[in-house]
């Protein structure tokens, strides 16, 4: 019965798929060092290396006035399709304390590098489709008139609302003398015709703690740490643009890129006005699998 449900190409390559899953879980770390930026909300213009898969897990602990604190989490699968195109899948969930743990939706995102070479400002087009419930609390972006009180209800109430959104960002980013500065104007449209276009922003600046590599392989060298700051918030919508009834956050961020492919990120976001959560404490762990595309290609009959 199960065998009939699984498509033929997958059934034929089943041992290979099992091997792939095992290799993802247990394979020896390669020597590739992920050089990930510390941002959690802001995007710079660097895409995933072609053929590499990055698996990321993030968690956001948020305080909630007038409700229960929560821990929202998401998993990202980020794949470098080409040197100018990265595609990504997010799966979201959350636990609201003294309430419940629920799956809250998924997002599919694509980033396209618009210029072939490096320039003073490098634009990347970001397009995302998301299908989430009102209980989604990952706060990956804060849009329009999103405010803290929107999240105060119980999960049973919040999950009744369903959002189908299209989100577009223009990722503008520049790197100079080790500093990266990124600015992301954001536009979001709920696909219901009655809903307005919403606006938001995210900006960030970061720098590695050392600009020169040491001659030996090390975990705790300063060159492996990148620190910075990001700020993000809503800018209203087409019916009522502006800063009133919007929330904003300022968050110091740090990333630790280990030689074994792992990256840890930490960010503590502080709400900047009364509409914001007082604290959004975020952390993330990610691992890059270089050559993933080639391994998958071979499993499905690609050239060795």
């Amino acid at each position, binding site marked *: 019965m199960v065998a009939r449900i699984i498509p033929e190409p997958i059934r034929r390559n089943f041992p290979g798929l099992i091997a792939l899953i095992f290799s993802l879980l247990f394979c020896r770390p390669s020597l590739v060092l992920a*050089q990930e930026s510390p941002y959690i909300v802001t995007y710079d213009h660097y895409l995933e*290396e*072609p053929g590499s898969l990055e698996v990321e897990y993030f968690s956001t602990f948020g305080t909630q006035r007038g409700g229960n604190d929560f821990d929202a989490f998401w998993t990202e699968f980020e794949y470098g399709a080409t*040197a100018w195109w990265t595609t990504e899948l997010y799966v979201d969930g959350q636990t609201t304390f003294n309430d419940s743990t629920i799956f809250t939706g998924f997002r599919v995102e694509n980033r396209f*590098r618009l210029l*072939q*070479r*490096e320039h003073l400002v490098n634009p990347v087009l970001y397009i995302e489709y998301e299908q989430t419930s009102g209980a989604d609390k990952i706060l990956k972006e804060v849009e329009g008139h999103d405010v803290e009180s929107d999240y105060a209800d119980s999960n049973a109430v919040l999950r009744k609302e369903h959002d189908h959104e299209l989100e577009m960002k223009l990722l503008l980013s520049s790197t100079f003398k080790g500093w990266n500065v990124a600015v992301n104007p954001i536009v979001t449209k709920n696909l219901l015709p009655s809903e307005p276009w919403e606006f938001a922003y995210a900006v960030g600046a970061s720098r*590695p703690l050392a600009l020169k590599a040491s001659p030996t392989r090390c975990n705790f060298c300063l060159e492996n740490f990148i620190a910075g700051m990001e700020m993000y918030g809503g800018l209203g919508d087409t019916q009522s643009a502006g800063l009133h009834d919007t929330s904003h956050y300022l968050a110091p961020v740090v990333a630790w890129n280990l030689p074994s492919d792992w990256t840890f990120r930490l960010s503590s976001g502080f709400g900047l006005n009364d509409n914001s959560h007082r604290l959004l404490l975020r952390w993330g762990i990610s691992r890059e699998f270089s050559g993933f595309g080639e391994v998958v290609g071979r499993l499905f009959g690609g050239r060795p």
Partner: protein
Amino acid sequence: MKAPFALFRPAGGVGPVIIASVVVISVFGTRLAMAQKEDAAARRNRKSTYAALAEAPERASEKKNPFEGDTQAVAAGGKLFEQHCADCHGSKAGGTRQGPSLLREEVQQATPGTMFWILSNGVVRRGMPVWSKLPEQERWQIVTFLQSLKIQSVTHNQ
């Protein structure tokens, strides 16, 4: 007059020899032609692969390597190469299916400034990402390591 199929008689004669010769020549000829075709394609591919080196602006290619001859920079560059470049270009920079050899004369004769420019800008249309996310000094360390490969190969030949 012999029947048309007389050549195929197993009794012997020159027939089987001619047939075998034709088959052998055809097979080898085809393979030779294919190999030449592949060679020509590979040459064209190599030419276009390394063509990006010629795209570096003059000002960029004239830049001097601040770490030239620095053995510490060679070691650091080797470490960075292993971490960021070896997956595509091979652990000894000899190239893989993903990325070309960096030991070829096209690369080894390029100026340090040209190598730095390629590292910073990538060759996006051919799959090499931009590496400006590495700080400038780290990119120069990688260039220093790549330059040291030329010195090593010259020493080895002597």
